[in-house]
């Protein structure tokens, strides 16, 4: 098992991101929390219920979108939804009403009686979200919900996730997409090799990563990256398209040195920007460190 003594808390109503590279332990964590696999040791509770001793009660509160598409492909979308409604004990009239509403919201209603084996990847993913929502869960576990989808479907699912969260549903989202986590999450945990490397809000994670601030510069003539990396106080120089990105602890000091460098080489600065570290920079740094 890949996960090694992770410890974290998610607040009620929070949209919590669980980030990590492939095989970091994201899916194993979500499978333990949703009762699919049993941890060798340790405890976890959801809304005060112990996941091992009160598994039925905790699972009753959850909606789950697993990483692998696992709707019943030999059933129609309608029958899949009704089945899940029955498994969660949703009364007949209510589950039919919710199934209709969800299928309409996700644009699947017209094809509700078609077998799922004929659905596209995006349609299957939307159906899995419908199945996760039929019991109106208090907590939604989403394992890579937008993975492999086209841009339009990704945007739709992200908007839906935001809406559910706004309505009070706690969301536990695993992803390796930094931008998705940045756009959606209140807080993020970064996991690597089964251990938590950091937990904080996306903005705070960015700010606490000193040494990742950078200056992006382009000149009228080609300048070698080696020459630029020798500019005083520059920690690292990296070519990004027709520009060069210079990493430094204090970008303001580097600015003066860079202007001196341009004068001495008779170079004209075309563009100059100071950049805060992206979440991706922070993620890569933390993963490398851990």
């Amino acid at each position, binding site marked *: 098992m890949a996960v090694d003594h992770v410890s974290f808390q998610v607040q009620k109503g929070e949209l919590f991101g669980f980030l990590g590279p492939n095989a970091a332990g994201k899916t194993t964590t979500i499978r333990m929390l949703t009762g699919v*696999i049993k941890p060798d040791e340790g405890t976890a509770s959801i809304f005060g219920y112990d996941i091992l001793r009160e598994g*039925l009660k905790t699972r*009753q509160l959850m909606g*789950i979108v*697993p990483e*692998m598409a696992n709707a019943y492909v*030999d*059933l129609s979308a309608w029958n899949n939804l009704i089945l*899940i409604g029955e498994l*969660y004990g949703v009364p007949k009239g209510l589950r039919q009403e919710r199934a209709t509403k969800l299928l309409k919201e996700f644009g699947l209603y017209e094809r509700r009686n078609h077998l799922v084996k004929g659905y596209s990847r995006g349609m299957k993913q939307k159906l899995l979200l419908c199945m996760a929502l039929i019991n109106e869960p208090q907590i939604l576990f989403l394992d890579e919900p937008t993975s492999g989808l086209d841009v339009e479907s990704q945007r739709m699912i992200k908007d839906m996730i935001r809406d559910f969260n706004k309505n009070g549903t706690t969301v536990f989202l695993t992803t390796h997409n930094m931008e998705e986590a940045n756009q959606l999450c209140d807080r993020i945990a970064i996991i690597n090799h089964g251990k938590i490397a950091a937990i904080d809000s996306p903005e705070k994670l960015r700010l606490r990563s000193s040494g990742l601030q950078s200056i992006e510069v382009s000149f009228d003539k080609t300048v070698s990256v080696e020459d630029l990396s020798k500019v005083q106080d520059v920690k690292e120089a990296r070519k990004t398209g027709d520009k060069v990105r210079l990493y430094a602890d204090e970008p303001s000091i580097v600015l003066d040195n860079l202007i001196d460098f341009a004068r001495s080489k008779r170079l004209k600065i075309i563009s100059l920007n100071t950049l805060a570290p992206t979440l991706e920079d922070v993620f890569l740094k933390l993963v490398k460190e851990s």
Partner: protein
Amino acid sequence: MENLYWEQFKRSFAIMKKNIRIYYSKGPVVIFGLITPFFLFLSFYIGRNMPAEALIPGLLGMTAFFTATSVGPAIVPWEARAKTLERLISSPISVWTIFLGDVLSSFLFGVVVSIFPVIVGLFIGVQIVNPWILGFGIILATFCFASFSILLSAYPPTDTPAGVMMLSSMIKFPLVFISGIFIPIEELPGWGKVLSSISPLTYFTDLARYSIQGNSYYPIALNFTVLVVATIIFLVTAIKIHERTMQKRL
């Protein structure tokens, strides 16, 4: 607590309905549940001059046994492979809820298909002297065989339905030959009688003979008792093994 069990029992029916929709038409179920017993019976019947009263109990026993054991073994490996088992495990249902649903779907398949040999018998003029015994016997026996069917898929924990079906055939075929279907129990040698006594199918075939021919080898009460005890043993053992091996399937 009572409410919890009732709620779980209701959810077993949801599993049963799902199984009916998906698995009744699957190839291995049709082959092992319908086609195999039909041709096995034909190969036994053709060329023999046997009265219908002697044939129908055997046909009924074989049909009930093959049909009620054809759905159960296929479901778990199928669902493990399709990753739908993970969906069920993460739902608010117990392992026994899942397997009770599997047993119910196998049971229903067995009961419905077992009615056909009875209809054929009536059509060709066979008299059923004890219809209540026969009806109750079919219900009890198919539930027993359906419970046996989930035991067949309990070990080893695999996600290959064909492997489980082949393994279960290796167990099911010898049982058919020692259970008084082709040769009445009283005509078996001593060692054959001992061997036949370990098969629950023997007791149903004996009940079917009693219901149609009016005579049985074992007392009727014993036949019913063995079927009830076997059902409990199969059901409890299968669920316990599945609970232990479930993690290996996911």
